[in-house]
């Protein structure tokens, strides 16, 4: 589904990703772990198409379609979803208005029926209940005055509504208490399916107790320096990142 080859990218002259490779097949969950500053968010942003990031070489394809030349909205329409490490406030635009505009755009592009207003409201309320946000959050400004945990749940809510092929979650667990972590994990687990894949970026092993990955990769100095199964996360938890960086 996702194929990233030898990706080198950076921002403002600074090279951050230095030849990154990763292949994700449909149905799989990959965890990317690594120390602060390793380039995890950079990878998410480059795949999401954030302006300002310069790709100097390499490729990233979604089901054979080159992502790197696309506008961010076109990637979303291809089925990429990026859950932000720091979701942004959009004051004055209600969650409902924002979600509706997003759903209309993405569903139309993917050839799905755009739900009627009534159906849309029903779906939105269901998703809201599933991430355990009170219904009045749909009326509030996007992330406006939301706590850190509420913002992350709101990201999962959006992901549920948009039904992406590839979900990139950038430290969705950071700043969450254990209850919120479980809610987020349940949201992700409920969406696992044979034709959808997840890349879960995290700094801590804790999230992976709830979202059990098929593969764990360690990102350090802009590349994947080690890959393994779920047990690698436990090893990292125990020994820290030092031993791997040393090895790389």
């Amino acid at each position, binding site marked *: 589904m996702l194929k990233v080859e030898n990706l080198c990218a950076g921002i403002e002259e600074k090279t951050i990703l230095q030849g990154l490779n990763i292949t994700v097949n449909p149905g799989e969950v990959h965890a990317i772990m690594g120390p602060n500053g390793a380039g995890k968010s950079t990878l998410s942003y480059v795949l999401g198409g954030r302006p300002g990031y310069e790709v100097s070489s390499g490729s990233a394809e979604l089901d054979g379609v080159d992502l790197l030349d696309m506008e961010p*909205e076109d990637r979303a329409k291809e089925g990429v979803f990026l859950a932000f490490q720091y979701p942004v406030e*959009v004051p*004055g635009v209600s969650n409902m208005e924002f979600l509706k505009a997003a759903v209309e755009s993405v569903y139309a592009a993917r050839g799905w029926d755009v739900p009627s207003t009534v159906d849309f409201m029903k779906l939105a309320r269901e998703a809201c209940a599933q991430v355990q946000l009170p219904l009045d959050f749909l009326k509030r400004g996007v992330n406006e005055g939301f706590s850190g945990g509420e913002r992350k749940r709101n990201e999962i809510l959006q992901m549920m509504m948009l039904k992406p092929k590839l979900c990139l979650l950038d430290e969705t667990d950071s700043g969450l208490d254990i209850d919120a972590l479980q809610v987020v994990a349940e949201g992700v687990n409920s969406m696992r399916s044979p034709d959808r894949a997840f890349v879960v970026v995290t700094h801590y092993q804790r999230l992976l107790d709830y979202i059990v990955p098929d593969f764990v990769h360690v990102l350090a100095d802009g590349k994947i320096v080690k890959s393994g199964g779920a047990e690698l996360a436990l090893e990292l938890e125990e020994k820290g990142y030092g031993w791997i960086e040393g090895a790389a």
Partner: protein
Amino acid sequence: MAEQFKDSASALASTFVPSKGEQWLSAQRKQGSAAFSGAAMPSRRIEQFKYNNFNDLLKQNISLAGASDQALVAELTAEIPGLNAHRFVFVDGVFQPELSSATDADVSATAFSTADDAQQAVISDLLGKLVPEGDRPFVALADSLLDDGVLLEVAAGADLQKPVQLLSVRTTTGVATPRLLVKIGDGARASVIEQYQCADGVQAFDSAVSELDLGANAELHHYRIALGNDSYTHIGTSVAHQGRDSRYRAYVINTGGAINRLDHVVDVRGSGSNSQMFGAYLARAKQQVDIHLCVEHAVPNCDSQETYRGMAAESGKAVFNGRIQIHKDAQKTDAQLSCRNLLLSNKAELNAKPELEIYADDVKCAHGATVGQLDPESIFYMRTRGLSEEKARALLSYGFINEVLLAMPLEPLADFLRTPMDAFFANQDNS
């Protein structure tokens, strides 16, 4: 150039006959003519007009509004869904009793031309009296061409369940001077919508004056809405005069307009009063919008909060001037002014200036004005959800202004306003 405007307007005033032939206000008209003759016309050298360009107006030969276009009247006076208001309608400057609601014991509207002796006394007492001294050429012009205005009275103690809509529409070129007097009795509560609109492409010019008098312990929600287009010049003066322990809420919307200007005076004359003003002003294309707010705190123990949002896109010009005067006796005043602006193109202009003048020593005041651009991170966030860059920009701009609409208790009116707002944000060329 200014002479063209001034001479033609003066000539109009000298031969002016009010549409209903009413004579008892001719002294007011004479006074207006004299004041207009003596007034300096707007120019860049005059502080209050510095940021506007009046050239297009000043080179015009002013004529009176001609016969109205009935098809446009019907279109522009369509009811706002769900608003369910008492309605009083002006067409091209003249009050239209046949388009207006019946009145009842709690609220009455009287055309100046049909006022009986007692009502004439009320009107004479108020008319022009609330407007503070100072150079006001457009008020003088409105006085000199004073036509059939309306006196709206809300009875003391009344708690109006329905809002009152004073709708003024323009369907033809020329000058109109819609005139309003609003008297909110002691202890009464009311929502009054003062709304100005003009058919697209009609080169209309308004010099509109409204005076609102709040009795002791009265509460008025004043919606002051001027929806402009490229051809409409609307210059308005609105004065609210607050009695003791009164509460005044203003929701001011100025969109578009060849010139769309409001001089808004809030004259706090009764202690224990509260004033809250929310406003939005938006210009695109070559439009000019302007809000000059002046809050006069003359008495002790009052507070006021002012929240404004402005936006200039394309080659638009937006001006906000927010003056808060705290007079010597106005101890314990608490005044907070916040004004945030979006400048969306290099060709647009935005001037936002708060002015605090404080002559009392025991007061709390704060003001802030900012001018910024749309946040790139927010745009990216929205695009990752499938919204085009243009849609993301439009939605962000809408959200910025929507904060003012969300403050309005009258939701049907806020909904009605979202349509022109959406159109305003769509398809901008800010290159």
